[in-house]
């Protein structure tokens, strides 16, 4: 197909939620998979190298249009947002602990941080960055938490495997210590 790139372009354009490769395959049934992957890659590269303000980012398991960082001030002016809200350091630390230890209970998180984390977990739940996935088979049957798709999207991660690796963490700790 000559215009495969443009077709994918159109599909991503009308998708507000990240469009997964599976969905593309469903639409393009008669196109071999490697061709789709190839076209997708070229399309992403085309937007990346072009002068435009738009790019395609891979996030939360799919592809979605986003603005390039340079246009952030103008978008914020349009939306009348002073600046995007950031997570508090408490919430961020709690979220990291959940991300690296999931599925995990409130008391486990509190032990890892040595600080009661009930409130921080509540905030994260409200923001849908974590979710309840069940109960642990332990005394009191405490709730188990996991990170959500929104968590991935929030940090621009494609999958949970894209979290900073053990090596990256150790490297950072050594830099801080030296």
């Amino acid at each position: 197909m000559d215009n495969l790139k443009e077709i994918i372009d159109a599909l991503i354009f009308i998708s507000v939620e990240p469009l997964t490769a599976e969905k593309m395959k469903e639409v393009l049934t008669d196109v071999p998979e490697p061709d789709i992957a190839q076209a997708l890659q070229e399309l992403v590269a085309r937007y990346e190298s072009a002068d435009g303000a738009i790019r395609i980012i891979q996030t939360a398991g799919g592809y979605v249009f986003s603005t390039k960082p340079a246009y952030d001030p103008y978008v914020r002016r349009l939306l009348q947002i002073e600046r995007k809200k950031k997570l508090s350091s408490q919430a961020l630390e709690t979220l990291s602990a959940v991300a690296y230890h999931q599925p995990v209970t409130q008391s486990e998180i509190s032990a890892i941080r040595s600080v009661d984390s009930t409130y921080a977990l509540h905030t994260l739940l409200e923001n849908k960055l974590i979710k309840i996935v069940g109960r642990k088979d332990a005394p009191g049957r405490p709730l188990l938490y996991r990170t959500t798709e929104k968590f991935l999207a929030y940090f621009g991660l494609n999958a949970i495997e894209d979290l900073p690796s053990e090596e990256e963490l150790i490297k950072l700790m050594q830099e801080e210590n030296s």
Partner: protein
Amino acid sequence: MIATETDPAPTPSPEDGYQVKLQVFEGPLDLLLFLIKKKKIDINDIPIAVITREYLDYLSRKERINLDREAEFLLMAALLIYIKSQMLLPREQPLEPDIDPRKELVDRLADFQKIKAASTLLREKEDAMSQVWKRTVLTAPLPEEDLDLIEVSLFDLAESFFTLMKRKQSENPRVIKGKEISMADKMNEIVAVLKARGVLDFLEYLDAQGTLEEALISFFCLLELIKARLIIAIQEQLFHTIKVWPRKDAAPA
């Protein structure tokens, strides 16, 4: 809250009032890590006496401690002193060399250090993403934003359910068959139906269940799903039937 010595509070100037920005220790492990770094101590060979003295020194400056967290900071102090006592105690049989009383604390510190590093890296990613905008701002409104829709209470749901139960009972007075249905299966079924149809009439769905038991289970499943905020139950108008929608903002299960 406890301030670090490396980051002293700036003298408040009259125009910005008494807004003082301090580096805050989130918890005892945070403070311990700071002290270990400050003293350039090897985390695997912590001189407990030195670190305990430093730690208590910080705690004694009450004005720098968040009293809400004081218990947690004191707990750590108790642990440090306990570890020291374990190391000092004369024993009939000397401790095996590979059982170090400090080991558990060291493991916790190492794990916490990793979480701190992860937080730093995630903060960088958050910063980068905060300058990137997606089109999600322009999503279609939820059905609940329509004016006449009322999110129903548990009592409304229960009342509907009992009405249905009465009707069922008169229809089918015999003993129910013992077919086992799990809540998990039923929940999956409800979610699947919602996915396919988009909306579900609460009473109609319960009515369509084969047995009383199945209807009961369906009802509990609906309650669970509402509780988990995966679906939303709405009554379009007073005395109308209750309908169930999947929550658009629900985190995908």
